[in-house]
């Protein structure tokens, strides 16, 4: 083929996982080529996109990231738009409308920056509670990678171990915690009165000082959908650092096939450019870092005579065990102002509720006071009431100050029936769209019914709520996990304990897809830790070769 390129390590995807690996490969003296399906844009363009949004679209976090025709992602502004790309089915289909952006920098562009670790118990569900699977290594194996990840991206958190989650740490957080806003403070006090501890979140956000050239948080309170000053880590900030070390990044390069050779090792990745021309990229080691939806999709698209079920899929586990934390939301109205919205959009959570012997019967749950300023909700709600003039102003103020939201994120078990397959529907380039069947299962439904919803009502009452509306339909947390599940047994998993595929020695699939269980917290730090564990293995393998 005419258009050929290559590097020692070829990385598909420029999100947090791809960028952490790229940096380590470059530091190890290996050449790196990164392929990104979407465009590469300047931060200020996204900031302006966001600020130009009408209030009704403010809460659609994908809205400032209009996808390119060749790199579609889910757009949520209407149900019809949302149904365009991700094809969803099953009892909880709508709860898998995962928001991620196919832009250089990936979904960390619009994450909240929350960096919970899994607990030792989260990794041993089978042994301790007789459900799901155990991870095939323990927390102590993962801990050094968690710490490295926290230092790589700059995580702030409490130094008091009684406020850390979990407190088993080899090093302190690189930065001290951010203070609570007034709403979070009130919520913490209310929780304490019923015996619950609201912990300051570990978050990839600079508190008080610059970190890795990025400024401290100045409280714009729009971490989602974009930190305007990069006080929050996002992988877009890693891109110029990678290039400064000699890494190459190709934007608008849509990988659509992984090519195997006679020995069933990976020989190349093929991609389309926006003119629909195909290109072939060779390398010694390949990393697919497109997270739990795009990575299994690409593997399934790549089936060949040696791999009839798709690349890396001899176990038939590619695309199975799709996970997230199914979320319910409690909307509170209070008599007194609570003043939500000072500081970052998320700064704390009740974590102890994710643990307990009840896990043999139902999942745990995380409770989070959402600190996103309520003015957008309040504004839209007040206008919809048909108010005008002073009455409108007063109602906007009341709704902004005297309402609050508590999110409940539930622990979901890996279920092989929650499965991603290729849809018959094709995208602009003629690539099959992903199709996902999703059922949160009785484990989650029991958790909501018997445990989390009664508890959130207690919390709301303690906070002084005059009205509480708890959603009845589960929604998505945008924490995509599963899809290329990890394990020591090659018959029951896709990747080994270094995220290397069991089937192809030079193909790595690090990130959320590899997670064996989900826990209740945001998956990103675990993805980053797995990326660094894989990076050690990749660098070692590249040097031996």
């Amino acid at each position, binding site marked *: 083929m005419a258009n050929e390129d290559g590097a020692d390590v070829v990385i598909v995807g420029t999100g947090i996982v791809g960028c952490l690996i790229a940096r380590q490969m470059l530091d190890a003296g290996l050449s790196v080529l990164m392929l990104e399906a979407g465009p590469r844009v300047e931060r200020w363009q996204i900031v302006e*996109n966001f600020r130009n949004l009408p209030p009704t679209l403010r809460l659609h976090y994908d809205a400032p990231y209009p996808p390119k025709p060749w790199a579609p992602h889910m757009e949520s502004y209407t149900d019809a738009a949302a149904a365009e790309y991700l094809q969803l089915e099953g009892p909880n289909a709508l709860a898998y409308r995962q928001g991620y952006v196919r832009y250089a920098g990936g979904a960390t562009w619009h994450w909240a920056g929350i960096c919970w670790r899994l607990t030792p118990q989260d990794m041993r569900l089978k042994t301790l509670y007789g459900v799901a699977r155990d991870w095939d290594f323990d927390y102590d194996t993962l801990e050094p990678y968690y710490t490295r990840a926290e230092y790589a991206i700059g995580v702030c958190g409490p130094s008091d171990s009684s406020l850390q989650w979990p407190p088993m740490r080899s090093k302190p957080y690189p930065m001290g915690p951010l203070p609570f806003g007034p709403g979070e403070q009130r919520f913490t006090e209310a929780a304490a009165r019923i015996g619950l501890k609201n912990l300051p979140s570990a978050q990839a956000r600079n508190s008080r000082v610059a970190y890795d050239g990025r400024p*401290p948080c100045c409280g714009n309170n729009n971490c989602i959908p974009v930190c305007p000053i990069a006080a929050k880590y996002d992988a877009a900030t890693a891109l110029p650092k990678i290039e400064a070390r000699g890494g190459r990044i190709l934007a608008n390069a849509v990988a659509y096939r992984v090519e195997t050779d006679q020995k069933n090792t990976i020989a190349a990745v093929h991609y389309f450019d926006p003119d629909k021309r195909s290109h072939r990229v060779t390398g010694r080691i390949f990393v697919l870092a497109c997270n739990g939806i795009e990575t299994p999709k690409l593997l399934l698209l790549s089936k060949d005579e040696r791999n009839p079920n798709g690349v890396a899929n001899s176990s038939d586990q590619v695309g199975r065990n799709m996970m997230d934390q199914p979320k319910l939301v409690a909307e509170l109205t209070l008599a007194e102002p609570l003043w939500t919205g000072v500081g970052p959009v998320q700064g704390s959570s009740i974590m102890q509720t994710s643990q307990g012997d009840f896990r043999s019967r139902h999942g745990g749950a995380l409770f989070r006071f959402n600190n996103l300023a309520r003015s957008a909700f309040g504004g839209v709600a007040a206008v919809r009431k048909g108010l005008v003039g002073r009455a409108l102003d007063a109602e906007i103020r009341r709704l902004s100050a005297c309402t609050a939201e508590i999110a409940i994120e539930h622990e979901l078990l890996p279920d092989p029936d929650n499965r991603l397959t290729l849809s018959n529907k094709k995208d602009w380039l003629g690539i099959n769209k992903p199709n996902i069947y999703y059922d949160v299962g009785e484990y989650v439904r029991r958790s909501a019914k018997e445990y989390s919803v009664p508890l959130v009502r207690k919390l709301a009452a303690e906070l002084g709520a005059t009205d509480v509306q708890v959603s009845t339909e589960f929604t998505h947390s945008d924490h995509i996990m599963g899809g290329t599940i990890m394990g020591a047994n090659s018959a029951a998993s896709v990747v080994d304990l270094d995220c290397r595929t069991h089937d192809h020695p030079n193909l790595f699939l690090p990130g959320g897809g590899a997670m064996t269980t989900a826990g209740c917290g945001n998956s990103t730090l675990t993805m980053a830790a797995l990326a660094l564990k894989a990076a050690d293995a990749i660098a070692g393998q590249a040097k031996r070769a």
Partner: protein
Amino acid sequence: MRSRVRPSGLKVPNLPCLIGCLALAVASGSWAEAAPAEVERGAYLAKAADCGACHTAPHGKPFAGGLAIGSPVGTIYSTNITPSVGYGIGRYTEAQFARAVRRGIRADGANLYPAMPYTSYSVLTDADVQALYGYFMHGVAPIDAPTPRTDLPFPMNLRVSMMGWNLLFLNTKPLRPDSRESEMWNRGRYLVKGAAHCSACHTPRGFLMQEKAGEEFSGGPVGPWYAPNITSDLNSGIGSWSQDELVHYLSAGDAHHKAQAAGSMGEAVEHSFQYLSDADLNAIATYVKTIPAIHAASDHRSRFAFGTASSDLGRLRGKYGIRDQESAPTGAQLFQGNCASCHAPFGQGSKDGYYPSLFSNSVLGSGNPNNLVAAILYGVDRTTRQGQAFMPGFAGGPNDLAALSDHDVVLLANYLLEHYGRPGGAVTAQQVAEVRRGGPSSSLVALARAGVALAAMAVLTALFMVFRRIKRSSGTS
């Protein structure tokens, strides 16, 4: 001139340094030889003279040199001034040390380039030079490591040329106390003219890179930045500043609604001024406030008094859809997208001043736009006891928040000047490119080369004439 360092003022600000040098003295085993009080005084003077600014490379060992200093005539590498015998100044006698500091002459007799501010240090008293010597010999750990050789282009590589330069521009007369002025004023003058070497940046330089006589402290370029007029002129200078504002600026790098230290001044505050005693900072301020005013005719208003809070938000929002991201930006969009998240949508900054307001700001009120452009490209990073003041750069570097093109910076800078600053000053792409390159380069090298070539031509012509004359005379004879 008597040198007095007040012990009461010395102890508190200088404690970390003191502990550091005591530790070093113990570590190097020279404790017995050093007179602690003298070493301590020398350490303070080395802070006041900001020796570390040039002689310590980023993340390098203290005073081990190796910092690349961009000068208009080429890159000069600072030297190792630790007491290392092989690589530093370990073999220097006190007299040799004094000659290097005050006369710019190395122990081997070679001349230093005036990147070393010996023209300022020339006023240092014998007692202070002695204290500095004591500190560098006994309070600094020897680092046995070489530094890159400075290799300026011809003819600047001929260090001997500096002898003529020194003859023209080096003042060797000591500073005599002015009995009409207070002790404080005299102390301030001694620090400003000597150790703090303020004029090295704040006085414009002439054709031969000398500080221009008669224009002292009226402002001059420092690499990509501009060290502004600090004379007592009300409009062009800092005559409108109070004593307290000046002292606070020197110790924290910030004067609310006036100016913030960045670039070389940020470094001077971080590495030097913040460690000076309140008494010395007040002395400096006392003297600076009396520097004779130098007025630029174009400065009709104080550079701290331009602009007001304003915003184009009303005109911006609702016009541009979210799919407009690939069209060419306007200055207003660049401001809202890159600056307003910290400096606020009306340019008013934050109430506590951590994020400075853009109006009433020296950077935007100056007739010279270099600091505006340099702040946009390089940002600010200054750490004092008040904490870190940090603004990212927007030049497209590995740590920068954005990769603004020269054209983007022109749009943004002119938008800012128009709305928050001194109107009418149009920043050009050439100016931005020059700041991005690191500041103006001097035509001195080319001119000097041309001069040498001309001189050579003249010699050749003369020889030719003589030869012809001889030939002719021999022919006719």
